[in-house]
């Protein structure tokens, strides 16, 4: 003889199976499947909205950086720079020179922050502690650079080749943020011919590891922007 308990169980399963199959019922099955599809669609929608919010904010930040860097690169320190007709031309050939035009890094940072926040300033968002700025200028064929972040000490020096600036920036990143979670690096020298920073007056800004909130998830990214001073002499 079969176990009566077993029979009851198999009967229950049969009854459920019949109920699902039966022509008269089946409504609950439709509801469950329908609700499952709705749930799935809802999860997909929320995820899309989350990512879309993130990309919108990221694009706004990157655009704000673009405006900020072109504003900041104009903060030229005329006291430190070689200005005037006497310094504007080479003595031998009379060619115009754009050497020795220095960017004032402190006012450049404040200009950068001002224009950045004018473009993008939601609540509880700041980049002061994540911003690194590097300015370069040429003097007697050498590239002199100044790197500053966090209103801490500056790193400065001279380089023979502008391709070496990438290494200096990356060293500075490690020194400014020794305990950073991500080890994002700056790659601006693909090879010496495609180097972004040439011998000249340039400003480079890097925002390390900013947190951007989507709808519910938070993503960390690092962004950089770069501008030349667009100088001319009469």
């Amino acid at each position, binding site marked *: 003889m079969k176990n009566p308990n077993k029979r009851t169980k198999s009967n229950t399963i049969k009854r459920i199976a019949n109920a699902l199959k039966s022509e008269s019922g*089946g*409504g*609950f099955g*439709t509801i469950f499947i329908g*609700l499952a599809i709705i749930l799935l669609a809802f999860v997909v929608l929320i995820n899309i909205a989350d990512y879309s919010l993130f990309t*919108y904010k990221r694009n706004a930040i990157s*655009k704000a950086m673009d*405006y900020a860097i072109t504003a900041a690169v104009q903060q030229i320190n005329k006291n430190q720079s070689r200005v005037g007709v006497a310094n504007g031309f080479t003595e031998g050939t009379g060619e115009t020179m754009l050497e020795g035009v220095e960017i004032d890094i402190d006012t450049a940072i404040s*200009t950068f922050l001002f*224009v950045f926040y004018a473009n993008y300033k939601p609540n509880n968002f700041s980049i002061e502690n994540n911003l690194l700025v590097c300015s370069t200028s040429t003097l007697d064929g050498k590239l002199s650079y100044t790197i500053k972040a966090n209103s801490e000490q500056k790193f400065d020096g001279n380089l023979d080749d502008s391709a070496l600036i990438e290494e200096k920036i990356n060293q500075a990143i490690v020194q400014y943020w020794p305990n950073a979670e991500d080890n994002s690096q700056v790659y601006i020298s693909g090879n010496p011919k495609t180097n972004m920073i040439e011998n000249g007056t340039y400003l480079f800004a890097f925002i390390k590891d900013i947190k951007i909130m989507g709808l519910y998830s938070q993503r960390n990214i690092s962004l950089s922007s770069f501008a030349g001073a667009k100088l001319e002499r009469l």
Partner: protein
Amino acid sequence: MNKIYAFIIVIPLIAILFLKTMSFYEFDTKQRYIKNTVDSAAHKVMITGVMTASDKDELINKLGKLSDFQNEDITLKCGYMQADGTLTSLYSYVPGNVLNRGEIFSIYVQSEDESTLSRMEGKSADENNKLFYKAKAVCRVEKPQQED
């Protein structure tokens, strides 16, 4: 009979979800396009230092394809940057004025009507909760200027 319940519950939920998705997608896409349009206009001023009346008409025309924008919905401002990198105040910009290198230029646009998403969310009772299409761009003119 049970199938009728299924229709009563499932179909309206799917419809609500679908409409919400559509309105969100519409808002997101239009908002991105409006920001891009404003950025392009600001870039032109950044490079040339001037926004002509025809440039402004073109901007209104482009924005008008996305939502309702009138002439007064577009706020143009400009101002001088201090030597220390701060700005004291912005005054209104008249189209056609030529800005010098180093001046600040700002565009702010806000649509006449609230978005479909905002109307669907039913927050229209309170003015502050309305969701308009807005975009802002603040730039500094960097056209080359000859100095000694």
